[in-house]
C-alpha cells in the first residue's frame, strides 16, 4: 500500500512539474507577453531584462519560477484588476468556486444515487425510464445548456430562484448554478449506480447471501450497495473535469465571482499572469483530487488494499 501511494504521488509531482515547465515555456514564447519584448528599444530591453532577471540562464530562471509558483506567488494582475496581487484575487474568489463545486457534487451524488437505486429496484418500470432519460440528457448536454435554460425560465420568466448571484445570500442565489453544474454528476452517478446494482443484484454472491437467509435492507445495503459504490470512484475523475469546465460557463452565466468567471475574463482581457496562475491552480487541484481518488480507491477496495497472499 505504501509503495502504491508513493508511486502515485511521484507521478503526481512529475505531472505538476511538467505543467509548470509548460507554463514557463509559454510565458517565454508567448506573443505579447511582458517578457517578449522585441519591439522595445534595446537599452530599455536590457534594463527590463536585468530587472526581471531575464539575463540569467534559462535553468536558473526556471528554478526561480518553480519556487515562486509553489510558494503561491503568482505576481500581479496587469489588465483585469490593475496592480492587484493575484493571490489577493484568489483569496476572495477561490472559496466561492470551491463552495459551488462542493454543492454541485453533493447534490449530484445524492440525487444520482437515489435515482440509480430507484431505477435498479424498479427495473423496467416507469422509474427506470425516467432515470434513463435523465442520464442521457445529463451526460449528453453541456452544463451551459442547462444553465441557460434554468436562467431564462426558472430565473427570469417564472422567478423561482435568483437569476444572478448575490454575495449577500450565497446559498439561495446559487440554487440555479448548483443544479446546472450537478446535472452531469446526477446523470453519471445514476447511470453508474443503476448498471452496477443490476449486475450485482444478479450476481452469484447475492444469490448465495439470499440462500443463507439474508433478505431485505440487510441484503441491499450490506451486499449490493457496498459493492456497487466501490467502483463509483472510477467515474469521479470525469466528473471533476466536467465540474471544472462547467464552472467556467456557469459562473459566467450567473455572474458568480469565482475563479471560473475570473479565468474567462482574463482570457478575454489577455491578462497572462492571471491566466497562468489560474491554469496552475486548476491543474494543481485536478492533480491533487486525482491523487486522493486513486489512494481512496486503494483504501476502500480490499482487492487493492491487501496484496495477494495465501494462494
Amino acid at each position, binding site marked *: 500500500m505504501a509503495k502504491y501511494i508513493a508511486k502515485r504521488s511521484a*507521478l*503526481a509531482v*512529475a*505531472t505538476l512539474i*511538467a*505543467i509548470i515547465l*509548460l*507554463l514557463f515555456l*509559454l510565458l517565454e*514564447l*508567448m*506573443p505579447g507577453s511582458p517578457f517578449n519584448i522585441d519591439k522595445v528599444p534595446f537599452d530599455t530591453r536590457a534594463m527590463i531584462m536585468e530587472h526581471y532577471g531575464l539575463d540569467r540562464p534559462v535553468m536558473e530562471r526556471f528554478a526561480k519560477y518553480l519556487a515562486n509558483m509553489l510558494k503561491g506567488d503568482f505576481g500581479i494582475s496587469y489588465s483585469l484588476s490593475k496592480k492587484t496581487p493575484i493571490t489577493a484575487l484568489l483569496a476572495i474568489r477561490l472559496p466561492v468556486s470551491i463552495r459551488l463545486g462542493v454543492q454541485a457534487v453533493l447534490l449530484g451524488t445524492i440525487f444520482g444515487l437515489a435515482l440509480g437505486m430507484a431505477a435498479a429496484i424498479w*427495473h423496467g418500470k416507469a422509474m427506470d425510464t425516467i432515470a434513463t432519460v435523465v442520464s*442521457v*440528457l445529463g*451526460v*449528453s*448536454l*453541456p452544463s*451551459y*445548456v442547462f444553465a*441557460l435554460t434554468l*436562467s*431564462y425560465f426558472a430565473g*427570469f*420568466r417564472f*422567478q423561482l430562484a435568483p437569476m444572478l448571484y448575490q454575495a449577500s445570500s450565497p446559498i439561495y442565489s446559487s440554487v440555479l448554478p448548483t443544479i446546472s453544474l450537478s446535472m452531469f454528476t446526477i446523470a453519471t452517478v445514476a*447511470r453508474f449506480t*443503476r*448498471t452496477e446494482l*443490476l449486475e450485482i443484484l444478479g450476481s452469484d454472491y447475492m444469490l448465495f447471501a439470499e440462500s443463507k437467509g439474508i433478505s431485505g435492507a440487510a441484503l441491499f445495503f450490506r451486499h449490493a450497495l457496498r459493492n456497487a459504490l466501490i467502483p463509483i470512484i472510477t467515474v469521479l475523475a470525469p466528473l471533476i*473535469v466536467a465540474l*471544472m*469546465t462547467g464552472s*467556467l*460557463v456557469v459562473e*459566467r*452565466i450567473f455572474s458568480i465571482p469565482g475563479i471560473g468567471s475570473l*479565468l*474567462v475574463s482574463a*482570457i*478575454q482581457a*489577455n491578462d*497572462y499572469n492571471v*491566466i497562468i496562475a489560474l*491554469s496552475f491552480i*486548476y*491543474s494543481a487541484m*485536478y*492533480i491533487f483530487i*486525482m491523487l486522493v481518488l486513486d489512494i481512496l480507491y486503494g483504501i476502500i477496495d480490499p482487492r487493492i488494499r491487501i496484496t495477494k497472499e495465501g494462494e
Partner: protein
Amino acid sequence: MQAEFKENDFELSGKDILADHADFASEPIWKDILYRFYKRKINIVCLSVILFVIFMAIVGPYLSGRTYEAQIIEHQNLAPRVQGLEKLGIFDGSEKIHYSNGTSAKVNKYRARDDLSNVYYWFGTDVLGRDIFTRVWMGARISLYIAFVAVIIDIAFGLTYGLVSGFVGGAIDSVMQRTVEIINGIPNLIIVTLLIIALKPGLFTITLALMLTGWIGMSRIARAQALRIKEMEYLLASRSLGARAVRLIFVEILPNTIGQIITNMMFSIPNAIFTEAFLAFIGLGVPLPMASLGSLIADAFKSLTTHPYMISFPVGVLVLLMLSFNILADGLRDAFDPTMKER
C-alpha cells in the same frame, strides 16, 4: 393422450441427424450487428437527425438568400417569421417582451413597419441584423467539421499510438504509457486554453488543440485490443489450435475490436463538438464574423432576456447534435457487443 397410434409410429425415423443440424451454423456477424442496430428505433431517429443536420449544413446557408456576415442595421432584432406558418399564429414575426416586473407585451416589428411587410427571417435576426438561419447552419458546418476532425484524430493519432504501443511492447510501450499518463494528468481545459492563447484563436488552433488532447481515450482502447490480439496470436502459434482459433480471432476478437474502436470514435464526436462550443462560449472560438454554434450562443446570451429566440435556435441545433451523436454511440456499442448492454 396416447389414444391413436399411427401404423408407422414405432418405426425408426432413420433420418440423418447430423444433416439436420447444418443450419445451426451461426449467422454472419455483421448481419447480427446491423439487425441489432436497426431494431432500436431511436438509433434510426438519431441517424436521421444527424443526416438532416448534415444536409442543412451543406445547403442551409444558401436557402434564405442572405449571407452569414451581411449586416442590415434596419433589420436588427427581428423575431422569426415563416411564410405559411404565420397564418397559424406561430412564427408570425411577433415576440413577447417580458419585463422584469413580471408584465409582458407582444410586439410585431414586421407589422409596425411598411418596409418589412414582405420580409421573412425564418429564425429571426441578431442584434446586428444578420440572418440567424444562415448563421446557425454555418455554425453547424463548423461543428460537423470538428466532428470530422475528431474522427481523423482518433484514427491518425489514437489508433496508431495505441497499436504501436501495444504491439511493440517492452521499453517503448513503457515510455509511451508514462507519456500518456502525464498528458492525462493535465486537465484538457488547461492545455486547450493555453494553446489557444499562445496561438491565435481560430479554426486551425481549435483543430490543433483537439489533436493534442482528443486521442488519449482511443489510444488506450487500441492498446488494450492490441494486447488481446497479441495474446491470441501467441495461443495460435504455441498450441496450433488450427481452424478453431483462427475462427475465434475473426469471428469474436476482431469484430469486438472494431466495435470498440468505432464506438469510441462515435463518443469522441460529441466530445469534440462540445469542446468547440465551450471554447467559443468563453471567447476562444472562431473569429468574427464567422459563426459557430458556440459563438452564436455566446453572442445571443447577451440578449437572453430580451430576445430569447436568438439563443434558442443555436442551442436547439447543438442539443440535437449532442443528443443524437451520444445516443447513436450508445446504440452502436450495444449493437456491437450485446453483453455490454446496460440493462
